[in-house]
């Protein structure tokens, strides 16, 4: 008898709750995900939409910040290489770049690839500095992390995959590379299990690289936004000291995670290259 009225009340309460929830927390995902508008202080620029050959190639926020990090890297390293033309002894900011480049060469490339690491060093350095710059630019206010987009990290992982396979095949020959995937001296009845496992492992390792970088970057930003959003959801000022101090702590952790994820991506790429090139151990 009263069922329809009760149902109407329940539906309206649910609708209000949903609308309220969407209004209060929708902005968290808006700040983390890609968007077609560029938010600068006091200006909001609408980015052009380009549709070519049925594909959506419009310019988005993450693309613009990828270009920003690209231009930063190009200008920075052209300047650094010019200082090396004058003298081999570094001064000033060249010291910083020398520390990072020697770190990538001596701690990442040499121990994992061993002999013949010079051929892969340009790619490893590029990956390391690109991911580092993208991660750091995302931490600046009004900046957005290009590596928090799954397309960007999937592209980086695909390029790593290509470098691993081509590097392994050029060293061991195409057939020799696939033969060397399965460890030497194994009982023959294990082969039907090992071959699919090893072939699948070729694809899951770069996939894990992409997801690890994407998830770390996105999760850090979501946690900061959620902590600061507590102030807006609870509509009080009492929670401000707690919220801001936690958000500051997570922000410092984010800086560490930015460095660490660039290092882990480069180190795992070079580890896989080493395993593909020197297949005997």
């Amino acid at each position, binding site marked *: 008898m009263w069922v329809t009225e009760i149902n109407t009340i329940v539906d309206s309460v649910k609708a209000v709750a949903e609308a309220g929830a969407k209004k209060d927390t929708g902005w968290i*995902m808006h700040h983390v995900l890609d968007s077609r508008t560029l938010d600068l202080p006091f200006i909001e620029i609408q980015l052009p939409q380009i549709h070519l050959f049925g594909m959506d190639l419009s310019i988005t926020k993450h693309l613009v910040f990828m270009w920003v990090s690209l231009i930063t890297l190009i200008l920075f390293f052209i300047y650094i290489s010019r200082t090396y033309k004058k003298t081999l002894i570094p001064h000033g900011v060249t010291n910083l770049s020398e520390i990072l480049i020697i770190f990538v060469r001596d701690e990442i490339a040499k121990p994992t690839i061993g002999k013949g690491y010079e051929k892969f060093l340009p790619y490893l350095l590029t990956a390391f500095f690109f991911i580092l710059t993208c991660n750091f630019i995302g931490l600046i206010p009004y900046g957005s992390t290009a590596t928090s987009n799954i397309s960007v990290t999937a592209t980086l992982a695909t390029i790593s995959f290509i470098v691993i396979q081509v590097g392994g095949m050029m060293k061991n020959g195409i057939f020799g590379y696939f033969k060397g995937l399965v460890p030497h001296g194994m009982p023959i009845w294990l082969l039907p299990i090992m071959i699919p496992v090893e072939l699948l492992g070729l694809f899951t390792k770069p996939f*894990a690289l992409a*997801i*690890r970088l*994407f*998830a*770390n970057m*996105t*999760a850090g930003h*979501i946690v900061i936004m959620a902590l600061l959003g507590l102030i807006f959801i609870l509509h009080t000022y009492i929670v401000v000291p707690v919220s801001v101090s936690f958000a500051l702590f997570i922000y410092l952790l984010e800086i560490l995670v930015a460095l*660490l*994820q660039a290092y*882990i991506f480069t*180190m795992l790429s070079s580890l896989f290259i080493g395993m593909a090139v020197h297949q005997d151990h």
Partner: protein
Amino acid sequence: MDLAHLAAGFGAALTVIGGAFGIGKLASSAMEASGRQPEAAGDIRTSMIIAAALIEGISLFALVICILLALK
């Protein structure tokens, strides 16, 4: 009554338990090894950070799936 949100909550909680347990065990053995041999503390610290980042990578796989569930 959206079961997807409930599943996302459960998934995130279980992932955090597994990840924190693994990294805690890792950190405890790293501390013990550093105490036994303080000269190797630098190497142990580097390996510990690498292993912690890899374990965290696994727990973030599950987090991505939970976010996908919660946003459905």
